[in-house]
């Protein structure tokens, strides 16, 4: 058993910490959120130049190793600065699906493009009626002489507005709820028959409703084996869950620190409100929640790196359950302790609250994952 960082992990953490501290001003971020692209192309190029986009990939794929522990290191630091660049959607989820399911040619061209920063991806899997059930896929892929015809509606597809390519889950056989019969396809975002309705998300990102209307894809756009994509999807979304939970740990740490600092400067009744025990113990609780979250993210990362199996899925479910509750609580407390200023748009703290709240709703919220934990 060893919990220490490798030299590479330490260097990675240091460089991201510096980036977040020096180059990720909250007010610049606010402008980026409202810009046309929604994030900074310069930052993305920097991520590529510094090799951060290589982190999620194995050495066989030309990456730096791709361990869950590495993802944890990156995302925790990103969480501290509320980094909005689509590292999750493109590098972790999109890249993860290609790495896990793609054939040699797909891997070679696409992963290289992700790592050099020239390819943006989005994964369209959720549907209006699926909630968090990954086997619920109503979108159909009907075999034709030329390939497959896609039809269906995908919900809240992260990074779809900026994506060059979209990976979509669709049913090639079976009933809407069957575990078998789900396939993945990768296609250009501007393909004929795709309608992308873009919008902002609560936490400063971009997403879209994506509709497929008789969208034709060829057989070589299939990602992985026809009909057996569910385990791939589950596996990659477990890694995505780890990533957002690590991000939440970073966000909770910063939110707690900012709350503590704020109470020291805010004076009421002739004294700093940090002197009030009613507030002090709530901040101690925030610290405890954050530390417990950090511990269980570490556990899940180590289990994922030890093997992709029931045990790691159970660890991820436990993690998502706890981090969901912890980030909800820390978010609510940070706002309450800040008082009125906490519910304004101008202060950064409310934006930490928003991101932490949304993280719980991604990839199965706390209740869903608690039940999954029990059933596994």
């Amino acid at each position, binding site marked *: 058993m060893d919990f220490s960082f490798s030299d590479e992990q330490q260097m990675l953490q240091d460089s991201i910490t510096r980036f977040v501290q020096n180059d990720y001003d909250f007010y610049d971020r606010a402008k980026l959120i409202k810009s046309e692209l929604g994030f900074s192309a310069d930052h993305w190029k920097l991520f590529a130049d510094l090799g951060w986009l290589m982190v999620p990939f194995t050495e066989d794929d030309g990456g730096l190793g791709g361990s869950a522990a590495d993802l944890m290191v990156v995302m925790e630091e990103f969480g501290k600065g509320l980094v909005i660049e689509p590292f999750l959607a493109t590098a972790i989820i999109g890249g993860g699906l290609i790495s896990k399911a793609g054939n040699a040619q797909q891997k070679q061209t696409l992963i290289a493009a992700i790592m050099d920063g020239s390819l943006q991806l989005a994964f369209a899997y959720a549907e209006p009626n699926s909630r968090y059930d990954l086997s619920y896929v109503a979108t159909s892929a009907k075999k034709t002489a030329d390939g497959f015809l896609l039809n269906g509606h995908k919900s809240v597809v992260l990074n779809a507005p900026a994506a060059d390519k979209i990976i979509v889950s669709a049913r090639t056989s079976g009933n809407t709820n069957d575990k078998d019969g789900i396939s993945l396809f990768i296609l250009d975002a501007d393909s004929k028959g795709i309608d992308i309705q873009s919008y902002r998300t609560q936490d400063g990102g971009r997403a879209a409703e994506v509709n497929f209307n008789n969208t034709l894809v060829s057989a070589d756009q299939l990602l992985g084996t026809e009909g057996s994509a569910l385990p791939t999807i589950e596996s990659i979304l477990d890694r995505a869950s780890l990533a957002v939970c690590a991000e939440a740990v970073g966000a909770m740490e910063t939110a707690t620190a900012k709350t*503590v600092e704020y109470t020291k400067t805010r004076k009421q009744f002739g004294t700093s409100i940090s002197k009030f025990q009613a507030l002090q113990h709530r901040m101690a609780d925030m610290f405890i929640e954050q530390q417990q979250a950090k511990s269980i993210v570490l556990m899940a990362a180590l289990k994922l790196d030890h093997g992709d199996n029931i045990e790691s899925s159970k660890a991820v479910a436990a993690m998502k359950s706890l981090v969901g509750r912890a980030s909800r609580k820390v978010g609510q407390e940070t706002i309450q302790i800040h008082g009125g200023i906490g519910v304004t748009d101008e202060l950064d703290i409310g934006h930490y609250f928003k991101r932490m709240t949304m993280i719980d709703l991604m990839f199965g919220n706390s209740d869903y994952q608690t039940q999954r934990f029990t059933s596994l």
Partner: protein
Amino acid sequence: MNVTFSPSELTFQQEVREFLNTKLPKDIAHKVKNDLHMIKEDFVIWQKILADKGWAAINWPAEHGGTGWTSTQKYIWSNECAVAGAPAIVPFGLGMVAPIIYTYGSDIQKKTFLPGILNSDVWWCQGYSEANAGSDLASLKTTAISDGDDYIVNGTKTWTTMGQFADWIFCLVRTGAPDVKNQQAISFLLIDMTTPGITVSPIYMLDERREVNEVHFDNVRVPKSNRIGDENQGWTYAKVLLTHERTGIAGVARSKVALEKIKSLASDSNHGSSSLMDNPIFAHKVAIIEIDLLALEYTELRTLAAISTGKAPGPESSILKIKGTEIYQAIDELKMEVAGYYAVPFVTEQFDPEFEGVKVGPESAANSAPLYFNHRKTTIYGGSNEVQKNIICKAVLGL
């Protein structure tokens, strides 16, 4: 980073299992696993077995007779002990006073006291709390007035756990002048319980057990050579070492075993037409506790890992106390819920291992409520959980 055991750690685990399997007396393990009443000899027998093996003092430095184990070895040890039903080590000698003696004591004190502690020949108890010095421990009033080579001690200590068995007591007493600030007026004394002037009176807990006592000091003469370190520095010694002895305070291994037992009982128990575990509300409560416990296990492992790299356990270790006791109590509550109606009968005789009558209800149910009542103490003792939060606020958050 990795979560696996190395080959040598696996060998160690095997050695521990072998040892527990052959050396842990079966009757003692039976008592532990079934929440039956333990007697003094049970603890002493077990600790002497450990001492023979050299495993009595897992946290002491090797030079004083400790194991010198790594944090992973300690983790393996506590897990295996919990699974096997080994009794908890009585902490007052091995866990509490010994580190003070080997860290701050004189060579003579080390030579005099450490062997008896290591071999469990001498039973120690703790004289910290007083009637009006609970969470605010430093406000204690027991005095030690200088008289030549001795102190004359007067006052009353309370909540003295298993003090009725003790040969020696370690005490915090006031040696400073009345106008000196509490923290700079306290000395640390080791006192022979057979000294004239000491009387011990019982306090009965909600389970009607004599677990704690009051210890009265009426002009008790204590040699100054039994003082640890300098006069009026006792508070510092006691405080520094509080953070050091948190290994195992979270009780993770014990809670894991208890929770597994609850899951098994709840799966077997009838809840109308289905098992209690099929009740989604109960299953949800179990899952939340289990998940909290997983997180706590890694919080403890992180703390142990930090210690093994030479860092002192920080005030973060207060988390272990807070979450560990909250989870422990939540498990007690579940156990009582599993018992249902059979938590109600209070038939104390049947907790005696010698009891030969007809037992009322299932064995797992009988002691569930008494333990639930008794274990409310856990969030109160050792610095109440509110005091632990004060520590986090002051030492971690800088409030």
